[in-house]
């Protein structure tokens, strides 16, 4: 007796609400269910083609929007990026590029035509060299801490600036307690941070449903779950709680498909890890607590800062929009394929000299 739904059911209520400016949550990392894991050797210089697509779909027309992007790889001694391209649809009415306070290439854009969908796609070709890291040869962590308090040059100063709280990372006594066992007396800082990285890897479960961009660090610590961004923040918080400089690195990780399956385009995710200041000689060393390793040629750095908030890939403020839906697709394709790997991932761990992974007293 009641007729079926007319196809234009929503037409009657689809009128926009009073548009208010809304800050878009920045890109979530990562959206995959599994931790971005790698199984490729990272010890050879590799050239990549990276495609990173961010798409917002809105429940209602967005009339004007402003965005800040961190999508172009920053200058880095081990990394060269040629001719990065950013495609934005609808086309921005104004755009500006500059380097932010931390030296990361940053873009600003204004979109002024009403739209229901926004696509931002970056395409990059990056060549990454593997680092040479000798964790055992780094100075004792206490020494690094002491030096940080009396900076003598710009590198020291940049490091000293990374000791303090930031919006998303507050160094609490709880974090200090968690970090302590890794920082035994006179232990080389590299070895101590590697140990901390390994403990985070073992103690915490990767769970894409457990946290969001706004989950506080204390909650991550309590529930022992999170995603790479949380683990990076955790490592940073632990180091800062001890008075050691640490920074957040956002980027991409090369992943390999399961044995016998083709590479899936767009199945990768953006990744995040942290870097620890290991004294003037060793400089900053990158650690990935999600994968229990130091970063190698499988890691492409985009930007670094105090935490995620400094370097989120895409953020914005929209006028209108009602609700929105976010999709992110990342594709990291090695262009110069290497011969089949003859080392296993486990062996890579042995960058850490055996003496340094001895059980913590």
């Amino acid at each position, binding site marked *: *007796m*009641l*007729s079926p*739904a*007319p196809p*234009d*059911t*929503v*037409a*009657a*209520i*689809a*009128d*926009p*609400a*009073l*548009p*208010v*400016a809304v*800050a878009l949550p920045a890109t979530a990392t990562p959206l995959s269910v599994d931790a971005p894991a790698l199984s490729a050797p990272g010890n050879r210089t590799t050239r990549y083609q990276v495609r990173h697509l961010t798409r917002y779909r809105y429940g209602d*027309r967005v*009339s*004007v929007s*402003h*965005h*800040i992007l961190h999508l172009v790889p920053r200058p880095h001694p081990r990394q060269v990026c040629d001719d990065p391209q950013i495609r934005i649809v609808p086309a921005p*009415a*104004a755009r*500006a590029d*500059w380097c*932010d*306070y*931390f030296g990361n290439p940053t873009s*600003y854009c*204004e979109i*002024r*035509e*009403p739209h229901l969908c926004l696509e931002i796609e970056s395409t990059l070709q990056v060549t990454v060299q593997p680092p040479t890291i000798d964790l055992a040869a780094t100075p004792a962590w206490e020494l690094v801490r002491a030096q940080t308090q*009396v*900076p003598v040059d*710009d590198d020291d*100063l940049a490091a*000293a*600036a*990374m*000791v*303090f*709280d930031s*919006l998303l990372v507050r*160094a609490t*006594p709880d974090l*200090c307690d968690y970090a302590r066992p890794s920082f035994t007396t006179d232990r080389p800082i590299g070895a101590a941070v590697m140990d901390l990285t390994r403990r985070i890897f073992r103690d915490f479960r990767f769970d894409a449903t457990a946290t969001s961009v706004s989950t506080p660090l204390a909650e991550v610590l309590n529930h022992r779950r999170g995603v790479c961004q949380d683990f990076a923040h955790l490592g940073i918080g632990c180091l800062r709680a001890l008075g050691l400089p640490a920074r957040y690195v956002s980027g991409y990780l090369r992943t390999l498909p399961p044995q016998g399956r083709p590479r899936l385009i767009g199945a990768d995710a953006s990744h995040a890890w942290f870097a620890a200041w290991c004294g003037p000689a060793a400089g900053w060393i990158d650690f990935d607590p999600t994968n229990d390793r130091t970063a190698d040629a499988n890691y492409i750095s985009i930007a670094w800062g105090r935490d995620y908030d*400094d370097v989120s890939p895409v*953020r*914005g*403020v929209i*006028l*209108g929009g009602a609700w929105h839906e976010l999709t992110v697709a990342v594709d990291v394709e090695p262009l110069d394929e290497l011969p089949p790997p003859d080392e296993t991932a486990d062996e890579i761990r042995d960058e850490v000299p055996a003496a340094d992974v001895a059980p913590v007293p």
Partner: protein
Amino acid sequence: MAAADPSSQPSLFGDVDSFGYGGGAIYDEMVTGHGSLRPHWQSFMRALGPTEPELMGERWEEARRLLRQNGVTYNIYGDPQGMERPWPLDLVPLLIPSHEWKAIEAGLIQRATLLNMILGDLYGPQTLVRSGRVPAALLHADPGFLRSLHGTRPTGGIYLHLYAVDLARASDGRWWVLGDRTQSPSGAGYALENRAVISRVLPEPFRDCRVQRLSPFFVAVRETLARIAPRRDQPRIVLLTPGPYNETYFEHAYLARHLGITLVEGGDLTVRDRAVYLKTLSGLEPVDVILRRLDDNYCDPLELRADSSLGVAGLVQAVRAGTVTVANALGSGIMESASFKPFLPMLCREMLGEELKLPGVKIWWCGSDAERAYVTEHLASLVIKPAFVALGGEPIFGAELAYDDKAALVQRIRHRPFDFVAQERVALSTAPCWQDDKMQPRPLVLRVYLAATADGYIAMPGGLTRMSTAPGRLVVSMQRGGGSKDTWILESRATEGVVAVQPSPGPETRTSDVTPVRGDLPSRVADSLFWLGRYAERADSQVRVLRALHSRLVDGTRPGVQREIVPLVRLARWTGILPWQLDDPTDNPSALRQALQAALFDSSLANSLGGNIQRLRRASAGVRDRLSLDLWRTITQLERLSEAPGPKKRSDSAMLMRLDELVTVLAALVGLEQVSMTRGPGWRFLDLGRRLEGASQLVSILRGTGITQAGSRDEATLEVLLELSDSTMAYRERYFATAQRAAVLDLLLTDDSNPRALSSLLAALAEHLTALPRPPLPPGQEAESPANLALGLVESARQSLRRPALLQDGPALAATLEPLAVSLPEISNLLVNAYFSHAFARPA
């Protein structure tokens, strides 16, 4: 929007309490320790005459009357009655003799110069940190250091355009700096208003005391604002306020008028092509200078605090591009942090080659080992405060801590030493206050103001004196006569001796003597009024559907009821008022009853009445100052009626009464709009919203009830249509008969004498659209103006009402209504884009 945000803008009064009043012998401003009147008070007291309660009471009443008349108010956060408290002003001014002021002035100018220079270094080369003269923590641990502003040098290297210092006089008679206000100091406008009132109430003392004038200071501020514009030719200057809920909103409006600049909220501005524009109904107007009353972090949700709804997205980018100057420069709040204070004497020697002239209250920054050790040992005699103003947090009085709390505090300081400072407790001087019919000494803090000019800083000869009404600890109450004081800086006696005494001219200028700024209606206001109209009309239509359904549910036995429920449920599901999955209600009345209650009260549902009334309320909050009190009260009443009642008050009859009441209150709203608003552009947009929504709702009702389906002659549907469109009475007056299709449709669609008929609504739309301003377009494209495009859509809709057989034939009706379901939302979009959000708009 523009909700009160307590974390923004430290309270003008609350912080007086944090200075830790107590201890030490007290210095009184009026009398010496021996009980005799200080020399500079003598002519004042002489001119004042006898301080008899009756005479003073009369003067006080006169002061209150002037304040009321000028609408001087002060809002208190978190207080439901807090909106627009009368401004507390004491009758007796604070007097400062000329020679004393000269010394203070020189110290203030030096301090302003120093802090501005430090800001230039922190946001530029950072040599102070590089050279180790100040610890890195002072910069990097302070949330007030805005990295996104680093490297942006403001016009002329001026970071502090208007700067304030809080002073207190210690028992030794010297003035000490308690704190600096470097981002957007408040109170200068209140000081000016205090002067306007007191100079009228105490004309003789004001004349005889030869008081220095405040107005030249504001002239200088105005000149500075014009001078710092990146674009020199007739710059547009605006004062950016957080909105009417802010504590000192009165002052924002007052200063804007006094300085002759436009008062705007964040929603009035937009960034286009990396430059700031003011959105007006006639288009985008470039903005060159922003005098802001928002704290640093709230100014740009894109690059600063993302959760700020008060700022302007892209403002930092415009600053970076150098197209706009913000006063004070974004990021200058860092100089309010207590952490910097202990370093100022050293920095003054190094940077200016001089000794710091005005001493600061003693502060220990716990980031240094020796100072931390001192602080933890002497906790009981100190006040512990956050080192960085952006951290927030209350001062802690060490003396008041229990043993355990003290240990916990020491632990917190050890863990994050650089986050804490300790400050010695200070003895504040007292000044006479007229209270309880007599002069009583009350502690005071003096806020003084400086402005950057082409020749360096100048100080305002005066200030805002803030008082406690209690003699003991500084708890400031504004319910009584205390609160604030006018501050008189006296002309020098030396001059007096040489030149014949020239009485100062009459009272100082008040705002009403200044020509008000003519400005277009801001887009934000038109936007809010437009949506207020739309939501009100939408709620009205919803209430009628819900009431029609509910009454039939209650009275299920009346003949014809069951047949009438069918088109009603169909409509309600079609328009999203009821969920689509709802069972056939004739079988399951209790499910329908439940769904009706949800549709009424569950504001989480997309199209519930409660949700729409919330949106109505939100739209009206943005324009509250433009709505009459009655109108506002009606909206509050609507909000109350849309809140879910307790389970015991959900009987059928109670619900029906509630729905009747809602219909009545919504009708009262229409009436008040018509009688209490002037027919300016604001009202026009409100009415546009109403008519547009009314037309949309009518089209939905006609389509949703199924009347467009071929051959539908159902009498029940026609009855429902008459009821929903509030036209039953009109119909009966004319026809005295049961509902006939052609007659009902004529009444609803084409009868120009029925104000609710579609033809009437469209005619009103056409009239409004014709009257809208049209922003200039390139020659030859005038027809492309959004108002003309919208008008075209309305005209073709009116044309389609002349379709033959419209009133008889289902398909003909559908052919008219279906295009309307598309073109009416399109008209709305055209208006939104052209007049409110200014999408596509090319900056002039």
